[in-house]
């Protein structure tokens, strides 16, 4: 019975394999997979890298990022400031949306309004914007509340939709979660980008075809793109080895070597712009989870230094990360404005005795006990990194009680509450990438400035780190339009926090992709994957 069944299966398979895989000469279908699906086709529904990068194939911003994350002209051809608080954008003429309608300034004004209201998740990008004005069909101006040197960088994330199309289909605001009806833009698109949406089956597959009327000269040579979410990493690896897909990310660390040995598969690795780091509660007078009562050891810089200089990031790279990490001592990565190679020097590791002495000087000759929070499904090998940290700190007499949990529980526990009260953690791991601006000011504002409910600074400063000099500097940087002066202040801020041992930066995790050998593509350091650079040989 089994033998017969197999024979039948094999015969059926052979028969259809002939049909299915018969290559047609011109068709360049590109199949690829990712662990999760794009959650929506609406470019404002979630401020998330994968959604933005996927939808950027269909929709375009005024200014886009090139292969090195530098800004380049897209729907705007020229931009700059009229005065410190007014920006102008000259729009490209002759551009058409996928439905044939002409692109104009009205669409830009409409899109920015849609992105800054209702159920949009992109409102943070408009914090400095006062008014968006149409000057003519091919020019808009934006007034800002204060000089904002990063406005163009922020607008690179805002994709432009068609006003007429949105009005016709009743989708002038992004999906409202409280309504029981679907928003048209969740499943349908009408952009100006290099690809058009042909088929959307959420969770199953999404098919794109090239836009024949695209204003730019295509680098890609694709005729069809089929995207499928494949959640199980082992299946993704099998699928690319079998040639069922041409490209996939991310590659599970354990399978990287396996794929590298496959003659038909290329593994593409690069450092990601996100920094994974450890932080300590420096706000409370007594730690929540510690045996030290009445005082907070982390308020003492010597304790922070002892921790910092006892964690061997190179060992973590070798053992836990299997070589797939890029250790750093700064809170921003190369590629982000404000990264300063000259300042990226990690202080030497301390011998356990020297570290113990530092702790003893701070008043903890016998070390102490502290709880640590860690996610187990957010960053590459997050829980294993924390376990390594636990054992490294054990050597200097600090007993760390690790609690690793899923991200939904983890973030709810450690993040600041909506009234800016501190989260419930003493020692924790986080990752941060200034994805909105690709500029270090975002990091200073979110992670270093003293948390303040009025000014909204320091929202993700879980530690409650506070340094008046750094606060002042960050405020100045926010509205400084002179590039050289600004870079100087960024360097100064960097020196302040490294000298303070404010956080323990660990590394940039590697972005690891795999593609069949006959595929050419470009991997961006922010882990985005533009299809416009993909070529099938």
């Amino acid at each position: 019975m089994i033998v017969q069944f197999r024979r039948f299966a094999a015969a059926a398979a052979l028969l259809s394999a002939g049909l299915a895989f018969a290559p047609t000469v011109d068709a360049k279908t590109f199949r690829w997979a990712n662990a999760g699906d794009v959650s929506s086709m609406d470019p404002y529904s979630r401020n998330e890298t994968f959604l933005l990068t996927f939808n950027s194939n269909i929709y375009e911003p005024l200014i886009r990022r090139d292969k090195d994350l530098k800004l380049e002209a897209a729907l705007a051809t020229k931009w700059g400031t009229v005065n410190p608080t007014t920006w102008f954008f000259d729009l490209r003429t002759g551009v058409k949306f996928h439905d044939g309608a002409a692109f104009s300034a009205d669409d830009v004004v409409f899109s920015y309004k849609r992105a800054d209201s209702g159920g949009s998740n992109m409102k943070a990008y408009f914090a400095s914007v006062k008014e968006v004005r149409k000057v003519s069909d091919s020019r808009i101006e934006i007034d800002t509340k204060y000089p904002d040197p990063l406005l163009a960088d922020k607008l690179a994330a805002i994709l432009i939709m068609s006003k007429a199309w949105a009005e016709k289909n009743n989708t002038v605001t992004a999906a409202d979660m409280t309504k029981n009806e679907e928003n048209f833009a969740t499943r349908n698109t009408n952009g100006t980008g290099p690809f058009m949406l042909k088929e959307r089956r959420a969770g199953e597959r999404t098919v794109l075809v090239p836009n024949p009327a695209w204003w730019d000269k295509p680098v890609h040579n694709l005729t069809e793109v089929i995207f499928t979410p494949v959640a199980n990493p082992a299946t993704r690896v099998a699928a690319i080895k079998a040639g069922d897909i041409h490209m996939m990310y991310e590659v599970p660390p354990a399978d990287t070597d396996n794929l590298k040995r496959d003659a038909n598969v290329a593994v593409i690795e690069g450092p990601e712009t996100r920094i994974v780091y450890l932080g300590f509660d420096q706000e409370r007078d007594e730690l929540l989870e510690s045996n030290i009562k009445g005082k907070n050891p982390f308020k003492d810089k010597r304790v922070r230094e002892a921790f910092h200089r006892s964690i061997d990031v190179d060992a973590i790279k070798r053992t836990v990360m299997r070589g797939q990490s890029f250790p750093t001592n700064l809170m921003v990565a190369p590629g982000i404005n404000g990264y300063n190679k000259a300042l990226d020097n990690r202080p030497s590791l301390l011998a356990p005795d020297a570290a113990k002495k530092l702790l003893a000087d701070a008043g903890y000759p016998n070390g102490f006990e502290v709880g640590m929070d860690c996610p187990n499904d957010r960053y590459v090998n997050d829980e294993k990194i924390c376990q390594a940290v636990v054992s490294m700190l054990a050597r200097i007499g600090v007993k760390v009680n690790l609690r690793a949990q899923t991200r939904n529980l983890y973030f709810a526990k450690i993040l600041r509450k909506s009234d800016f009260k501190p989260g419930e953690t003493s020692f924790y791991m986080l990752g941060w990438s200034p994805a909105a601006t690709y500029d270090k000011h975002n990091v200073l504002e979110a992670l270093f400035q003293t948390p303040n409910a009025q000014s909204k600074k320091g929202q993700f400063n879980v530690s409650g780190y506070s340094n008046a000099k750094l606060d002042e500097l960050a405020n100045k940087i926010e509205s400084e339009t002179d590039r050289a002066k600004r870079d100087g202040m960024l360097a100064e801020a960097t020196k302040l926090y490294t000298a303070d041992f404010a956080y323990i930066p660990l590394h940039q995790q590697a972005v690891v992709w795999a593609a069949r050998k006959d595929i050419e593509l470009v991997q961006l350091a922010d882990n985005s994957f533009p299809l416009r650079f993909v070529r099938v040989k």
Partner: protein
Amino acid sequence: MLAFILRRLLQSIAVLLTVGIVAFFLFRYVGDPINAMVGQDTSMEERAELREKLGLNDPAPLQFVRFIGNAAQGKFGLSYRTSEPVGRLIVERLPATLELALCAAIFAMVVGVPMGVYSGLYPRHWISRVMQAVSLIGVSLPTFLIGILLILVFAVMLRLLPSFGRGDTVALGGWTTNFLTVKGLQALILPSITLGLFQLTLIMRLVRSEMLEVMRTDYIKFARARGLSDRAINFGHALKNTLVPVITIAGLQLGAIIAFAIVTETVFAWPGMGQLFIQSVQFADIPVMAAYLLLIAFLFVAINLVVDLLYFAVDPRLRSNVGAGKGAH
């Protein structure tokens, strides 16, 4: 009979309510959906506003009542993850899961029953011993391992079958089917075997032991004495009498196949309800989880009802009881 069905329907409503309550109790432990819904830069205010809008600040009993009230009207809300209507998300995934479950169940029955009959009739034959050994593998290997092994052999090494996905499907109204394209059928083979293997071994072992038992009974001996053919004895008398427990198990297992297709669907990236559920758990997508659990509970209840009705068809004693007005149970 009608009274029996009505009673069963009332019971099923109670079951559904209980499932709903338990599910809502559990949702308190899946974490904060807001963090999965927004980007890292989203301000505290926006987070708080969204939490308030979604009613996540309300006490759990109130959330539950609201959910049941909406569900009774067929409104399950929007998915936190994709902002699509939950009802449609599930209905779209239903065909994939049901077709896979059906193929797995048929595979298990069509292969499992004959194997069980054979090894029950000829327990000492070497083929029976081989089948016993093979069935041990089916029982003891975890599903995801079987799936990955099948992918490795048939997709990666032999390149005969696709490694994942549904292949090509054809839409018939709202139903997407795999049965009408070659690639769709191909794509069904590995996941159906993976999902059905455990049930197959279970059914085989059950039929085998039932057959062994029945073959020892007096009425089989009398049948032989009457000079009936082997075929009439084996299938007309013996097999028919083993069927009641087999139907029970197969029916319950059909529910289990649908509910536990989660693992198989994840391994094969099969776009069914199980995969939807797993994704929803990761994102704390409460509306989808709640609707899915209710649907699965409903399926179990419905299948049990059908199984009970099948007893009537197979076992004449139950029919006579109903005729005498005593009720079925």
